[in-house]
């Protein structure tokens, strides 16, 4: 629901922010919109190639290993990664809300939890990439057969490593941004400014990373 605004409120008559948003936060939104098109273009080109192919590998055969358990566990490891990212998104919201309440201790605690979640996700991805690489999968190399037993092209691995790699890079930069936010919070930068709006911008970026994963997870592992 949009904010209820009195009809006589003149947002565009000057002297106030017409979108009632701080400049940086608005620009973060527009950046994320453009980033959504970048990821959208990646995923749609993946879909186009998949629609143009007679066969495609079965994700449940490709992604079926779990560290310490061996193979035969389809969807298990990626479920873990998904929940890690959802939980880190939750702690990020809590950090933003703590910022509203000017509760520095809660901001620090939730930022640390978010950073740990991000690092856990990156570790999972590193393990998965290493495992797939050992099986012979990489850009330009696909050891997996199509679901119907026919020979697969390298499109599957090329798209997988490119898109999860691009997403992983976003997670990585998100972790770096959150670490910077943590240092700034600990140095009382936001206390002196009188507001924690910067945490909100970092939060928007972090949620976007979670949002993209929802799509990557569905497109590569589920369907």
């Amino acid at each position: 629901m949009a904010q209820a605004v009195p009809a006589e409120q003149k947002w565009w008559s000057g002297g106030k922010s017409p979108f009632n948003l701080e400049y940086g936060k608005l620009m973060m939104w527009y950046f994320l919109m453009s980033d959504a098109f970048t990821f959208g273009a990646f995923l749609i080109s993946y879909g186009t190639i998949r629609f143009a192919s007679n066969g495609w590998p079965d994700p449940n055969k490709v992604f079926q290993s779990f560290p310490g358990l061996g193979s035969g566990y389809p969807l298990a490891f990626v479920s873990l990664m998904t929940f890690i990212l959802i939980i880190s998104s939750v702690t990020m919201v809590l950090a933003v809300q703590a910022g509203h309440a000017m509760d520095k201790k809660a901001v620090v605690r939730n930022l640390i939890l978010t950073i740990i979640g991000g690092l856990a996700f990156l570790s999972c991805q590193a393990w998965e990439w290493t495992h797939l690489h050992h099986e012979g999968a990489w850009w330009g190399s696909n050891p997996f057969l199509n679901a119907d037993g026919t020979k697969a092209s390298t499109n599957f691995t090329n798209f997988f490593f490119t898109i999860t790699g691009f997403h992983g890079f976003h997670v990585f930069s998100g972790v770096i941004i959150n670490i910077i936010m943590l240092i700034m919070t600990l140095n009382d930068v936001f206390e002196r400014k009188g507001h924690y709006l910067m945490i909100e911008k970092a939060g928007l970026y972090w949620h976007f990373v979670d949002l993209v994963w929802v799509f990557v997870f569905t497109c590569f592992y589920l369907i």
Partner: protein
Amino acid sequence: MHFMENIQEITHHHSFDREAGKKEVIRVTVILTVFTLIELALGFWLMGIEAQFMRHLIKGVICILMLAKAFYIVGYFMHLKHELRNMIMTIVVPLLLFFWFIIAFLADGNSYKNLKNKYDPYHLEQSKTKVEAPAHEGGEHPDAKKEGSKE
């Protein structure tokens, strides 16, 4: 100091009951978790299903759940639902391009496949030839098994 006034306005505007905020976060977290669990259950179900129509149907449901999750993340975690309507429109309206984007490109991919199968019988025959499954667990050097064919 206009800038400071704006900041004041914004922080006041967004100041809300923290307990209510926490409740909303818990509610959305539960929704996201449940949707993800349903997606996973459908994913497991999908493994044992052969009928093409049923497979497409389940995949469709998974995609709807994916969009629902996206709505909750953007609307509540990213707070977009609580912004001003005009601002929401500047974000959402450009994203409508995705309707064209997805339909046009997937249809194009499908048409390419059909045309290629029609005019390139060799390609069609190749894509129907089953091959031996390579041993995955051997841990050989990846370069030793470059068997992906370039399209």
